[in-house]
């Protein structure tokens, strides 16, 4: 059945491998995926370890509904202490890896130690083998997967891999699978690289028994219809996430020239329609009817004719808005390069834009850039810097260390211009006019992030009764809620609610685009409770699932606190408070975040969590969530 998949402990130093069943009691507390990874992380990583040393531990997992009849149940989760932030490292990606890992018999991998030389794991129907990776070390993400499939003689093998960036320990290197499924943010690719672990190949033919097959088929069809009947899903399926660009850039909600402007003017070539010219069709992850990922071919230049997938909204920001560029080609090529190097494109673009502002201000000179003219709007410089970061050459080597370490090395007040939270770069969205979104990035457990808690539907000006309906379940809420995205009122609850919603869906292994992330009518706790029962037989109410998510999020908080997190790191850089927005529609211009009001929002957000004024969970909170005795070393 869906609950009989195992956990494997793999020690790369000694070569020892042990497998165990996952007790039902632990399942009920953490489900799987990110939730159970967070439990494991708190239990297996000793406080204060070097994130790139052998004592850090890598966790790879599938959500508990992965591979079952739960619309878009495809997600792989990877965790460990982040080489970028030193706090929670956690990433989630789509594709076909996680379902295949479940068909091969496993839900969770705990990878310890460091291999003497590069290796990869071969996992097949309950067996795990550590194999020599000399043929794939140094290869790109795309090459690696082809070579492994040829070596093992099976074209259906699914592979999670790092690229050259992970091998070079770029602190924001990704884990990747297939063409462009990226486990980005927080540098999990560098973690695998530090262990000399190039890839994990999986293939399985083992049944996942569905608890109630007929009901699961019927209900999945209903949920799929619920998802695909939403306009936002149809737009996603037609054009992908680049559709978001039009609305946000027109309003003035994007970060341009690092953080100097909030709208990219005269940028027709950055629009979704411009990118769509090169799109040859749409594709999707396992079991998904939204198919939000574009397939494209690079039309000209040194990469002419190369196939890739994407680009997403993040690429429009990373390779256009932030560096002040306006070329479709730069977006297409930048996306391709970060895919094959296996590197977080959001972090890459953001750091290049930061370096450009430093160059503009004379903090970096031609000497530092080895003659590269690192000015805003220089497309060639953006592409060149991607190569240099991935290969750790010159200034690229400094940026590869991540913003905070780079700022320390560069000095000269460079940190003033770095746009980050907890050492992780912000998305290209400008949150000065949107307090809810600002609170979200300030408090996200893995550092600045839009996928941890962003109430994106706050931008829709939904009527208050609709907000009330969404945000009053599965736990009651009768506090304020406001439709205006520029307000501060009621936003802490929205952030808390979305945080819990996304944690839940990451435990289940379902894609966030199938939740209340982008559409008010999309599934959440109510539907998940039924999906869980029909597919696995586990009887858990919507409130039970909410509690699992809250428990898991508190484990993340406890991990961060143990690693030295303090309240002042749940905060934004000064430019959010001191420099008003200059462009955009009238209601957006002249906006800053108010320090006092943000502080009040954070207090309220902590209260919703049951944390004290320093962001530390109250003893009654951990007791209520039954995590007051952690680490309990049950698994």
């Amino acid at each position, binding site marked *: 059945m*869906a609950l009989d998949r195992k956990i494997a402990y793999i020690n790369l130093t000694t070569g020892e491998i042990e497998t165990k069943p996952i007790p039902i009691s632990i399942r009920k507390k953490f489900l799987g995926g990110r939730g159970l990874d967070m439990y494991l992380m708190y239990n297996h990583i000793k406080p204060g370890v070097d994130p790139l040393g052998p004592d850090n531990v890598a966790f790879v997992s599938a959500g508990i509904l992965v*591979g*079952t*009849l739960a619309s878009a149940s495809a997600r792989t989760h990877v965790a460990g202490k982040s080489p970028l932030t030193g706090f929670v490292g956690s990433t989630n990606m789509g594709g*076909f890896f996680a*379902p295949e890992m479940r*068909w091969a018999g496993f839900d969770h991998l705990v990878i310890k130690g460091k291999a003497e030389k590069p290796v990869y794991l071969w996992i097949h129907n309950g067996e795990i083998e550590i194999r020599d990776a000399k043929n794939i070390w140094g290869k790109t993400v*795309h090459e690696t*997967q*082809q070579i492994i499939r040829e070596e093992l003689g099976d*074209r259906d093998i699914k592979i999670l891999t790092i690229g050259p960036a992970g091998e070079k320990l770029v602190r924001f290197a990704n884990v990747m699978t*297939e*063409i462009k499924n990226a486990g980005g943010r927080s540098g999990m690719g560098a973690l695998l690289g530090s262990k000399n672990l190039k890839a994990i190949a999986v293939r399985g*033919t*083992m*049944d*996942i*028994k*569905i608890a109630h*097959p007929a009901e*699961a*088929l019927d209900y*999945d*069809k209903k949920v*799929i219809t619920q998802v*695909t009947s939403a306009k936002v899903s149809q737009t996603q399926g037609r054009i992908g996430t680049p559709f978001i660009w039009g609305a946000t850039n027109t309003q003035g909600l994007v970060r341009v020239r690092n953080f100097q402007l909030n709208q990219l003017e005269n940028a027709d070539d950055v629009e979704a329609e411009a990118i769509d010219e090169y799109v*040859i*069709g*749409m*594709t*999707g*992850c*396992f*079991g*998904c*009817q939204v*198919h939000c990922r574009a*397939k494209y071919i690079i039309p000209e230049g040194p990469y002419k004719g190369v*196939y890739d*997938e994407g680009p997403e909204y993040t690429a429009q920001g990373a390779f256009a808005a932030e560096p002040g560029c306006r070329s479709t080609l730069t977006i297409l090529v930048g996306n391709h390069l970060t895919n094959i190097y296996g590197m977080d494109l959001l972090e890459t673009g953001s750091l290049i834009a930061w370096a450009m502002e430093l160059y503009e201000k004379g903090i970096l000179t031609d000497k530092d850039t080895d003659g590269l003219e690192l000015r805003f709007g220089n497309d060639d410089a953006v592409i060149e810097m991607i190569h240099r970061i991935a290969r750790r050459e010159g200034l690229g080597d400094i940026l590869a260390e991540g913003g905070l370490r780079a700022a320390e090395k560069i000095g000269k007040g460079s940190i003033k211009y770095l746009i980050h939270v907890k050492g992780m770069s912000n998305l290209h969205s400008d949150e000065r006019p949107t307090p809810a979104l600002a609170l979200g990035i300030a408090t996200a457990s893995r550092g600045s992030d839009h996928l941890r808690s962003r109430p994106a539907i706050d931008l829709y000006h939904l009527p208050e009764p609709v907000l009330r309906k969404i945000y009053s379940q599965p736990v009651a809420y009768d506090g304020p809620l406001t439709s205006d995205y520029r307000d501060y009122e009621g936003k802490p609850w929205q952030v808390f609610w979305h945080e819990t919603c996304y944690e839940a869906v990451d435990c289940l292994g379902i894609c966030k685009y199938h939740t209340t992330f982008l559409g008010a009518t999309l599934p959440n706790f109510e539907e998940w409770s039924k999906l869980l029962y029909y597919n696995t037989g586990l009887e858990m109410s919507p409130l039970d699932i909410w509690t699992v998510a809250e428990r898991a999020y508190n484990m993340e908080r406890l991990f961060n606190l143990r690693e030295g997190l303090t309240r002042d790191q749940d905060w934004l850089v000064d430019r959010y408070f001191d420099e008003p927005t200059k462009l955009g529609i009238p209601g957006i211009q002249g906006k800053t975040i108010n320090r006092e009001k943000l502080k009040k929002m954070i207090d309220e957000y902590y209260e919703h969590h049951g944390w004290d004024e320093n962001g530390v969970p109250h003893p009654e909170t951990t007791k209520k969530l039954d995590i007051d005795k952690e680490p309990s070393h049950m698994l």
Partner: protein
Amino acid sequence: MAKVLMIDYEKCTGCRLCELVCSVKHEGVSNPTRSRIKIVKWEMEGRYVPMSCQQCESAPCMVVCPVKAISRDGGMGRVEIDYDVCIGCRMCIAICPFGAMAFDTLAKKVIKCDFCDGDPLCVKFCEAEAIQYVDASMVSAVKQVAAAEKFTGIMQKVAAAIATV
């Protein structure tokens, strides 16, 4: 008129939901190796092709079967296996030109598409409409329209280009 599965690989997004619903419907499990339909992928080119039984008029499996376990269902027009007669010799798998006959190693039996007895789930779940269940006579009609549309589209583009010269 008998219906057939009409496959338009250009519409396939490669999500493999058809494999999942097929294995759940027939075996109560999620396991693509036990599905009667399979998406063959060229992942590095973004090309995906659904492969399933073509219900051939002159079916090699039917001819080769040494115990005559394979026959045509008069009502649905499908090629079907009589499991009471089948000896599991796999000659049908060897001869099928499409690889549409599979051997389920867990149930130890040959499996193939049975149209879910008239309501194919792969069709029901494929919103991209890459797989459709249509009258056999409709297949070429649909393709004719699609091809004609492409052709006239090109003609119109050419005409427009000439007009602007």
